[in-house]
């Protein structure tokens, strides 16, 4: 190594004067650069930074050897572990699913009455059913199944299509007004009726739950001619046609006069999606079992 004799060439020396400035705090000299008072110390490269850098390199190289890492034109290095993220995800799901099928498979073609008496099965299934309900049904029907405007309550005794588990399962699977093969329910538009007639009908129907709808009035005739075909004589409901009873509280859109006028004028065609594409038959049966028991579970 040659000795540097020119002070200008020393590290930290001012290139013009050759002075080395030593920082009194750290004892290091500066690089000799100066930007408006900003200087830089000539601190040697900290060993720990080198070690840390090498450790992260080592981690990376090991990872590249073990996992899929570098592209090679049309292919890529597969890694010694030969991992495939698609297969790993599938395996993980299958492992969980195997545990679940232990009890869920009993819902594939169920005898609901027999299942209900199996306490061990109920202890396994009901918490899962509650989560399925919360994830799939609660957004419309409410967290406790209490419904809301436009969405039927599931925790009362009024069912539009029937509340037995088999029937609820069909409703869940096929939906209402959702697909070609789903249940169909439509309240037609009655905007062709004279406004005065609609007004009279609205007042009549609004009085039905309290039983104070006048029996032999022009409105009663209008009701028999236009509404009774679906809603039944006296408005007691046409189950299995999706036409609600007008004498209790199963109407979804409100039974005050304003709501009824709106219904008469615009009609109603609510949609319940079909879940057969999203849930398995066993899950649908489990949910149907859970939903049909909601009225009893209500405190």
């Amino acid at each position, binding site marked *: 190594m040659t000795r540097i004799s020119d002070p200008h060439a020393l590290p930290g020396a001012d*290139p013009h004067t050759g002075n080395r400035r030593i920082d009194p705090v*750290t004892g290091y000299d500066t690089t000799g650069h100066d930007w408006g008072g900003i200087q830089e110390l000539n601190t040697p490269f*900290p060993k720990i*930074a080198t070690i840390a850098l090498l450790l992260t*390199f080592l981690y990376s190289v090991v990872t590249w050897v073990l996992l*899929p890492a570098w592209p090679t034109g049309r292919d*890529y290095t597969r890694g010694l572990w030969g991992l495939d*993220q698609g297969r790993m995800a599938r395996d993980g799901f299958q492992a969980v699913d195997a545990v*679940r*099928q232990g009890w869920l498979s009993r819902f594939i073609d169920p005898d609901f009455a027999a299942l209900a008496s199996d306490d061990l099965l109920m202890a396994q299934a009901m918490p899962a059913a509650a989560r399925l309900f919360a994830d799939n049904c609660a957004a419309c029907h409410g967290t406790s199944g209490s419904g809301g405007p436009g969405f039927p309550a599931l925790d009362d005794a009024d069912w539009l299509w029937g509340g037995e588990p088999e029937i609820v399962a069909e409703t869940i699977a096929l939906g209402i007004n959702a697909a070609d093969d789903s249940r169909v329910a439509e309240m037609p538009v009655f905007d062709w009726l004279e406004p005065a007639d609609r007004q009279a009908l609205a007042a009549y129907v609004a009085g039905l739950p309290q039983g104070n709808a006048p029996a032999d009035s022009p409105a009663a005739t209008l009701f028999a001619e236009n509404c009774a075909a679906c809603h039944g004589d006296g408005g007691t409901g046409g189950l299995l046609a999706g036409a609600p009873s007008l004498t209790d509280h199963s109407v979804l859109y409100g039974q005050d006069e304003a709501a009824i006028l709106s219904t008469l004028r615009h009609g109603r065609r609510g949609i319940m999606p079909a879940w057969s594409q999203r849930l398995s038959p066993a899950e649908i049966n489990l949910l149907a079992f859970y939903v049909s028991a909601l009225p009893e579970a209500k405190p």
Partner: protein
Amino acid sequence: MQASLTTAERQIGTGLAVTLALGGLVMAAAARHGVMAVHGAMALALGLGLVFRLGAVLYDVAPAGLDRASRYDDGPTRFGIWMTLTWAMIGMVAGVWVATLLYWPEATPPWPATSFGRLRPVHTTGIIFGFGGNALIATSFWVLQRTSRARLADALSPWVVLIGYNLFCAWAVTGYLMGTTQSKEYAEAEWYADLWLVVVWVIYFTLYLRTLARRAEPHIYVANWYYMAFILVVAMLHVVNNIALPVSWAGAKSYTVWSGVQDAMIQWWYGHNAVAFFLTAGFLGMLYYFLPVRSGRPIWSYRLSILSFWGIVFFYIWVGSHHLHYTALPYWVQTLGMTFSVMLLVPSWASAGNAIATLNGAWGRVRDDATLRFMFVAAVFYGLSTFEGSFLAIRPVNSLSHYTDWTVGHVHSGTLGWVAMIIFGAIYSIVPQLAGREAMAWPKAVEWHFWLAVLGTLVYVIAMWNAGITQGLMWRAYDANGALSYSFLQSVQAMAPYYLLRAIGGAMFLGGAVLCTLNCRATLRQSRTRDLAHDRPLAAQPAE
């Protein structure tokens, strides 16, 4: 603005303003209605305003004593600081409001423009581009001139850059409110705004290089390396990610040319490098100037600066794929993103460590000076969030954290703790000098701001860590029977206390920023024109 311009520059400026107004008119006329027409009208109004402003003084004699060659051009910086604070108010109010909506969704007003989905990008764009971008441009002009001992290469382009950039921000934010978006996170602005930004950015980079070429110092200071990396790489990212085909030249809607998983990869290559080069590199430039100046200490290690700069610039570009772990993106791309994220840690920590070690010998000042403390806390949070970033990029860790509020907490430990803190440190350093004073008008308010900012950040970040880890654990939990332990709804309900805390932490941070804005206003209102002794004299320049 006009005070520092010569007659010829005022004429050129008026010409540019007329061009802008005509361009806006053409846009509005072509679009006729909709978002683009409104944006055209905005450009028209801005252009006309500038025409009147410059036209009114077109042939006025330049004020006596305007000796441009002997002083730095700080007018654009002053304007940029104002815009920084304006956007801070817009972006932070929007942020606190949407945070409140997450706790209290019933408060959403019934208008489309005030829905969560439209206000959320107003927050992100307002903060990143409005607040962060203006701070970067304003401080870059300040730092560039002082570390080069040269005045900006010309008097007009800094104004074009700042006014043009703010037009971009205003277009972007008003567009979201009216319902347009490219649906690319942090690149939501539509095609003509993106093209406009390219023009502005080219002028910015050219100005930077031209000024640097005039420098009177033999070396280029580290801060300028970072600012240049910021400008250059952001241009590259912006152009590639925003290549899109407009549905019509007369409408705002466009579709990206990228599709499928390539689109996702390009979006997150952009998205993560927006973090790297917009929110990191530029702000490291800021830190590298204001920290040594304020503390009066030399940078601890020149060698570490070199390692950090090249490490950050090289490794960051690779890591975007860690945003797409466990997706349709091929596994090998994920592995590369993960490993490069881990290798990135050491250069990042070298920067943070270098900054903190620089304070050796100045800890007394850190204790006494809230402005320097802002910079110290910024360096600490920079270290924390870069560690967290590398950690979250590790695939199995990401399987817990991804899609949860942990990500939101991580981003905010970076933006509140690092980016905003260093901005406030820089503002409190610059504003008194701009006003020709020794200190801010209300020194106590700086102290209050500091503690509000630190506490707000901690409350925010800790709430989001808890929220994210809780979510991640709830989502992945199966019971002994192989069924999910929690419904998604339960995981949402579990967030309520954390979302409330987040809104409170954000409101504290906003409160501090409001103090800062009022303080800057009070300080700048009492401006005196005199050169402060500690501002570096400009080197003699050749006649312009």
